[in-house]
């Protein structure tokens, strides 16, 4: 179209390094968000330590294939951490960025606002990864809970659960007008999701109807996949597929719906 376009002076541009800096900056900002760290990491860690100190929770249980109630709570708390970061911290931050014109400001730079989203996703993913390792270490070293017997299966399940939850968080953010609505919607979503993961009543003790519903919720599916891995086999297809459908489906809709302002 234009003469100025014929020789793009692209040589000096280093989008790779800019993306990396953006990821570092967003990670720093997420760590400075004390509320997210308190709810996402501090509280589940404290709960883990308290539950681990209750002897009656440390007896093997028939319903869960010989795992103790405490054993089952370790993955529940890992999911708690993922859910807080993905459906409350991420949407609140991004909706705030939209509300305050941060994304609009990024649109005027060569980097563009989509990479802010990516950086926020990576930052939350990284914090969740560190928290997951921390929880496993505390449960293992502090209370003698064995690592999941099928470690690879556990890793796959965790990755899919992280992808599904982050996609749900992104979808939640796609159209909300501002921070306050985003954090309210995140909370509304968080409690039923955690219920179906067995935070209050372990899944194995739920009535059959609820157990069936739980199967198709993201955290219920996540729990099933984790339990398979804890008991020593690669997670079965249904929970993994459920998580993958959430991850892909929500991402596609979120990308289509996402508004920058």
């Amino acid at each position, binding site marked *: 179209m234009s003469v100025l376009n014929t020789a793009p002076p692209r040589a000096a541009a280093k989008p790779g390094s800019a993306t990396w800096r953006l990821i570092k900056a967003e990670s720093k*900002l997420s760590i*400075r968000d004390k509320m997210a760290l308190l709810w996402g990491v501090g509280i589940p860690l404290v709960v883990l330590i308290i539950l681990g100190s209750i002897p009656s929770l440390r007896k093997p249980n028939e319903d869960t294939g010989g795992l103790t109630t405490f054993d089952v709570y370790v993955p529940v708390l890992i999911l708690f951490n993922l859910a807080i970061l993905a459906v409350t911290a991420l949407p609140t931050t991004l909706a705030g960025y939209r509300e305050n014109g941060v994304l609009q400001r990024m649109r005027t730079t*060569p980097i563009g606002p989509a990479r802010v989203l990516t950086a926020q996703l990576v930052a939350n993913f990284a914090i969740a990864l560190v928290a997951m390792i921390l929880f496993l270490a505390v449960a293992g070293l502090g209370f003698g809970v064995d690592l999941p017997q099928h470690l690879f299966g556990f890793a796959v399940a965790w990755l899919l659960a992280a992808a599904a939850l982050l996609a749900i968080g992104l979808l939640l953010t796609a159209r909300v007008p501002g921070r306050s609505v985003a954090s309210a919607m995140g909370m509304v979503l968080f409690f039923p999701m955690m219920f179906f993961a067995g935070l209050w009543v372990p899944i194995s003790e739920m009535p059959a109807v609820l157990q069936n519903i739980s199967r198709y919720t993201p955290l219920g599916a996540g729990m099933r996949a984790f339990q398979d891995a804890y008991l020593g086999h690669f997670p079965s297809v249904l929970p993994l597929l459920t998580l993958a459908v959430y991850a892909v489906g929500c991402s596609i809709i979120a990308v289509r719906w996402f508004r920058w302002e």
Partner: protein
Amino acid sequence: MPPVIEVRNLHKRYADKVAVDDVSLTVQEGEILGILGPNGAGKTTTVECIEGLRTPDRGEIKVLGLDPLRDRAELTRRLGVQLQAGQLPERLQVAEALELYSSFYPRPADWRGLMHDLGLTDKAKTRYAKLSGGQKQRLSIALALVGNPRVAILDELTTGLDPQARRDTWDLIEGVRSRGVTIVLVTHFMEEAERLCDRLALIDAGRVVMVDTPAGLTERARIGQRIQFRPSRPLDDSLLTSLPDVSGVTRRGELVVVSGNDNALNAVTTVLARNQIVAERLRVEQASLEDAFVRLTGKRLDPH
């Protein structure tokens, strides 16, 4: 040489409101064009269309020969933007923001130097949320310049700054201009427009009322001088109104106020001398751009 920015017959409406009705503008290389107009005139919408943030309903825009929508990637590398309402993440520190933004551009300016020029060095480690309005504004100016742009569009450049910071910012902008950067400045402030702009576009209700140099605008509004004095003895108005250089005579108590073109003072003093009248407490005011604006649009620019 083709203009750096060319806008032709721009039209943009929001759901129920025409924000920009018909705007055409050109900006030449190296000049500072001021866009002046009352609140809601369509200034921000116009520059956001130029920046490629909004899709015009009609009209053509070229910036450095690029189409702001189709050639976004290339345009963002060469255009520095200060948004009227754009903010930064609350917990991001000043130096972090500048360093981060400078990494977005192929040939960035020295961000430490900019931080210093804008008086933000002591705030380097302060979080954005903790900055005062004026400091946020200065950071936003620094971020608009950190990519070493060929063209900068600054919306409400000095709104929210105290008078000293405003003058410092003007010096900075003059420095930027002297490096050959073309600047579009959206402003409310007459003094700013007079001091910085080579040409001014007056926008009112989504239309360009007039484009001219600041001096040309005052001239066109035909209000050159305002002369005020107390005559030493009674004076017949017709002595003054008959002068071709005088356009109006009014009384304010015992004072006579005469307006007219640049020759009015000469003519008035000659007539007074011939009639042996002494002009006591004589004051002469050059008509300001503000007067011109009111004359041309019938509106005040910055309602107090």
